[in-house]
């Protein structure tokens, strides 16, 4: 990466990292814990990223006097610049302390030297910029605004997930070490690549995998599922494969309950935004529906 500051650390440090995107909500701890888990399992460097979205369009003024005197413009500029400076400094310091707490939490959980960073910008934009050096994103499905709004799915998540092409682990609940993992397999290109990725990655090694295919029953589906099973078994995964006809959403929900699954892997947002607008998104529905940590494949 060209915009990395030069440090004495080895250059590989910032490559293939687990990037935990945190904001100052209770979800930060959940994100941190899952990111620590992933980093430890993959033996990958971990970085906490706090994005400060500046809102120049928001004013805090109680001066409605409407009077402008000598050098009104210069004075106003100085005043506004001072306010912004004070606010920026406060936010920076607050963010630093908050990130430091997360760093300590990660160190306590056994990550060698987690890195922390704050950047100005907009979430989606920043993550796309950072993507080159990232192996896995971890982010909360809800964030700061969730404390005040009743939205089920953070308004950013859909947009951000669409913009990225690396796998994204989205979490909503307190950390529990995953013991049973389920792949929602649809035979499509995204999940097929996902199966290969899971087979090759150390992330889930040793965990039993439940391969679930739903929808219409067909010869082709069975063949696809068989392929996925063999691929996973080839790298010593313990695999249960099931082909359950029915509405995908309901079937997945039911199986999660029955099999006490605690992490879900699925393809995400494979359709165009327009189609999503018209027919809704299966991904968004599922994400809203389940509280499981979900690994989204792109």
């Amino acid at each position: 990466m060209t915009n990395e500051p030069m440090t004495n650390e080895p250059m590989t440090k910032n490559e293939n990292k687990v990037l935990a995107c945190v904001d100052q909500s209770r979800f930060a701890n959940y994100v941190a814990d899952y990111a620590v888990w992933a980093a430890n399992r993959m033996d990958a460097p971990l970085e906490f990223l706090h994005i400060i979205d500046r809102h120049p369009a928001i004013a805090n003024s109680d001066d409605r006097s409407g009077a402008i005197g000598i050098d009104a413009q210069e004075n106003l500029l100085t005043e506004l610049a001072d306010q912004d400076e004070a606010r920026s400094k406060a936010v920076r310091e607050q963010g630093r302390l908050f990130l430091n707490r997360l760093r300590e939490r990660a160190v306590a959980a056994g990550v060698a030297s987690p890195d922390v960073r704050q950047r100005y910008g907009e979430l989606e934009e920043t993550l796309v910029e950072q993507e080159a050096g990232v192996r896995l994103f971890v982010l909360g499905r809800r964030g700061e605004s969730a404390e005040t709004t009743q939205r089920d799915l953070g308004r950013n998540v859909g947009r951000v997930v669409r913009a990225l092409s690396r796998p994204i682990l989205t979490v909503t609940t307190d950390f529990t070490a995953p013991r049973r993992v389920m792949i929602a397999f649809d035979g499509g290109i995204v999940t097929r690549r996902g199966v290969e990725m899971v087979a090759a990655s150390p992330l889930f090694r040793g965990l039993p995998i439940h391969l679930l295919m739903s929808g219409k029953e067909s010869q082709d589906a069975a063949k696809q599922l068989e392929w996925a099973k063999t691929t996973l078994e080839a790298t010593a995964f313990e695999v249960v494969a099931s082909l359950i006809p029915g509405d995908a959403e309901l079937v997945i929900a039911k199986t999660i309950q029955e099999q006490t699954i605690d992490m879900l892997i699925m393809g995400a947002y494979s359709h165009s935004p327009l189609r999503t607008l018209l027919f809704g998104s299966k991904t968004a529905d599922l994400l809203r529906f389940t509280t499981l940590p979900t690994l989204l494949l792109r």
Partner: protein
Amino acid sequence: MKSLQQDWFSNVRNDLLAGLVVALALIPEAIAFSIIAGVDPKVGLYASFCIAIVIAFTGGRPGMISAATGAMALVMVTLVREHGLQYLLAATILTGVLQMLAGWLRLGALMRFVSRSVITGFVNALAILIFMAQLPELTGVSWIVYVMVAAGLAIIYLFPYLTKAVPSPLVAIVVLTVVAISMGLDIRTVGDMGQLPDSLPVFLLPQIPLNWETLLIIFPVSATLAVVGLLESMMTASIVDDLTDSSSDKNRECMGQGIANIASGFLGGMAGCAMIGQSVINVKSGGRGRLSTLAAGVFLLLLLLFIGDWVARIPMAALVAVMIMVSIGTFSWSSIRNLRKHPATSSMVMLATVTIVVITHDLAQGVLVGVLLSGIFFAHKVMQLLHVTWISEDEGRVRTYHVTGQVFYGSAERFINAFDFKEVIEKVRIDVSRAHFWDITAISALDKVVIKFRREGTEVEVIGLNEASTTMVYRFAIHDKPDAAEQLMSH
């Protein structure tokens, strides 16, 4: 979607309140500028709320206030006096068309040629013009008017120490109106100045003959209006950019100003543009988004409809006080302190801009002179960046001239004068590889030097002309060749 939300609804409460403050301040301004232009106050008031509302949607700089302005009013005085209101409305529409054209041609980029000094000069000239426009209300009137104006200014500047929750210009207007009515003072009121709006404006076509003569009458005025309007709008936009630490779309603003003026013309309003003073008031009051501009327009309309009768009874002295405040707030007082600190050429550009505007009452002419002067001064400075050194070689048979620096129309003469044509010598070598030839004048100056030497029987060799004349090629584009700048500076 996101920017739409951010432009409109990220700052709702502040935007609405700031819009209200601005609307209150717009009333005196719109009336005062109508009087300057020589039309009924309703023309300026219709223009102000129409432009404010339209620009809220079409403008490129959220949070900037546009309405009927003094700069524009001054340009239309003669047209109104000689041809009447209908021609003004037609000229307003044509102004809008020209401004849209400018936006479409992306002429907003031309603002980069308007230097800081010219902008300061423009702002100062504007403030002086606003102040001068108040003089007719202050000459040949009774002492009561002076007392009223002084009292108005005192309220405007002292009331904020008491509370900043209420706009002090409004307090001044209300207090002076109440005093004037209750004491039965015999002084001029807004109602004396002409018709105020009594209804919503209606769409109407200007009643003018659509022919070549009409175009000849309105076109020069429209062109000037278009230029002045865009100049003030672009300047105000960059002021608001600075204040709010955000960016704006200048070409969209050009288009938006055009659309707003067209709408204004069809609704019986005069041409307008962005207002520096009002925009500063808006930002100061917390206005940031498009909603603040829209609110200013809507509140202005509501105020007129509900308290129109009272507006007629406001004494002119109160408006004069408000306008003096606007003029004080618009003037860049630090530029006076900086006159000595800044380079003399910058100060001259600023003063020249101010002087021309005050004499001609035309901001466009002032800016033109300012821009030309800045260009000439800049050329003059770059002229100094030319050095010619010489050395005798080959036992006095050859002289080599080394040319370093910029050769262009400004320095061509200096370049020629650097050579000694009287020297009796076999051969002259001119090394221009460390010089830049910027234009045809530079090349012909070199030709001249070569010919002069040849006439003396001296052989001439020019070295490095290819490198030196790369700057001549118009498409010597730095931006698509990363090493071009380095190349340019290295030889």
